[in-house]
């Protein structure tokens, strides 16, 4: 009896909204979830409840930013006419923001990778199958299969829990290179590549941040911010290793090279640092600054083996260009993952 009543209530609400909101769309009419398409692959499924089933729509890559998809919904107005942004799952897409240009709605879907690595489609959901009611426009985003190939050299990461900390972020740009490249963006780009590789090889990976933001709060004290990153490692169940990714900087622009730090009382941290350092130097050919013990906050205060990577010097003009290049970021991410895999192979 109760079930029937609530069913009627839901139907009534849908009917009411359909009548009242003809030709309009509110961000509240949006929902998303990560669904499973096979035993190993997932995809992001988004639903937009529209008032008219004949609404026209297009989904395309932003010609000026290959990490953005434009969903245009024609002849529809944004209710309240306000701009609203919603965070998405973080793996398939970072966020969606809605804008109303007077006639159409433009939704911008930000991806954490280039759109050419994704499969995406927009379609009207069959009314009989929709859970959200009638006239539902759906957008599905999945990663292309090539990305999911498991590398034999990385299989030892499977089943391990790895926390990745992209250094700085939000109100803290980190070091800034002579050309204006910011450390916080480089560290996040490399961390996301590391994330993708590790996840595709079966690891559980937690990021301290997945967007350009402070982990604790903007302009917080240094200790609050660093402790918030440590806490991600401490409060994640079963964290095996904590890895902080940085770009180096020095007052002398000639300083260059790749280096990795560990906490002096952690032999496992030292081993992790050495293996990643070896792989990075083999891959990038830069000056080998070696590994060193350092009293860094995130190393000292994490209880699991940890390491802090300094990819290269953003204060060095040549290395700044490298740090900003997708190829170099990918090379470094792969080398880091090989080092991590060797670490787990031996332990």
């Amino acid at each position, binding site marked *: 009896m109760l079930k029937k009543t609530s069913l009627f209530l839901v139907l009534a609400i849908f009917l009411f909204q359909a009548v009242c909101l003809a030709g309009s769309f509110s961000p509240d009419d949006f929902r998303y979830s990560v669904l499973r398409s096979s035993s190993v692959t997932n995809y992001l499924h988004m639903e937009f409840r529209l008032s008219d089933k004949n609404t026209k729509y297009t989904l395309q890559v932003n010609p000026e930013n290959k990490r953005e998809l434009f969903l245009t919904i024609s002849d529809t107005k944004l209710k309240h006419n306000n701009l609203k942004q919603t965070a998405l799952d973080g793996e398939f897409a970072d966020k969606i923001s809605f804008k109303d240009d007077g006639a159409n709605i433009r939704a911008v879907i930000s991806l954490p990778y280039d759109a050419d690595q994704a499969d995406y489609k927009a379609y009207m959901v069959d009314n009989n199958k929709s859970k959200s009611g009638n006239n539902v426009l759906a957008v599905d985003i999945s990663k292309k299969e090539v990305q999911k190939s498991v590398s034999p050299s990385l299989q030892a990461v499977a089943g391990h829990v790895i926390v990745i900390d992209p250094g700085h972020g939000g109100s803290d740009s980190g070091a800034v290179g002579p050309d204006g490249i910011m450390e916080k963006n480089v560290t996040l780009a490399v961390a996301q590549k590391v994330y993708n590789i590790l996840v595709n090889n079966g690891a559980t990976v937690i990021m301290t941040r997945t967007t350009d933001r402070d982990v604790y709060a903007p302009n917080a004290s240094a200790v609050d911010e660093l402790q918030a990153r440590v806490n991600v490692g401490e409060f994640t169940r079963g964290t095996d290793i904590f890895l902080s990714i940085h770009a180096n*900087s020095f007052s002398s622009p000639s300083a260059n090279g790749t280096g990795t730090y560990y906490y002096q009382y952690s032999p496992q941290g030292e081993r992790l640092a050495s293996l990643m350092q070896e792989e990075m130097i083999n891959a990038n050919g830069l000056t080998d600054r070696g590994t060193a013990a350092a009293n860094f*906050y995130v190393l000292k205060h994490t209880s699991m083996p940890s390491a802090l990577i300094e990819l290269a010097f953003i204060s060095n003009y040549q290395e700044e260009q490298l740090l900003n290049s997708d190829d170099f970021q990918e090379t470094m991410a792969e080398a880091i993952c090989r080092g991590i895999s060797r670490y787990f192979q031996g332990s």
Partner: protein
Amino acid sequence: MKQIKTVLAVFLVLSVVLVAGCSSNTDNKEQAGQQNGQITANDQAKPEKAAPDKKAAKNIKMTVYFPDENGQKLIAAERTLDISTDDKYTAAIKALLQGPKKGEGIAIIPAGTKLLGVTVNKDGLAEVNFDNTFVKKFSGGSTGEIMLVGSITDTLTNFSEVKTVRFLVDGKPLETLSGHLDLTTPVTRMQNIL
């Protein structure tokens, strides 16, 4: 109280004379250690207690450190510090502020930084107090932090009585420079960059 001060002053003059008479560096350090046990940094600068002709004798030799250009090691630089107006700790930091000579590496304390004071307590904790230029003008990453903290810490711990160093900015303890080194606890000598 006045009596104690007089005794201390006499002791200070005596030890300064002794220091001036010593030729080896290690002797210098031991004498400096004795001074420190009883005299705070600021009390040392009392020109009226020393005869004018002894002024030339108020020099000590010591080693200060500047980073190499690649930020990998500290380079030792010999300095003769004038401690007739400044205490030796202040004089040592001022030598770092003045920067290196050719071949001694690069300047590391951010340009324009003012030293507000150095104190050393009986437990061997040195507290170095800079104005906020120290942080505002700092632009390094991990390497910049290690070299800056290292040059100051390793220079001050050359005084054998100094065991650890805490950094203050405008009198308040500094937590980190730019988010790498944990400065919330006093820093010990950084031997691995010497």
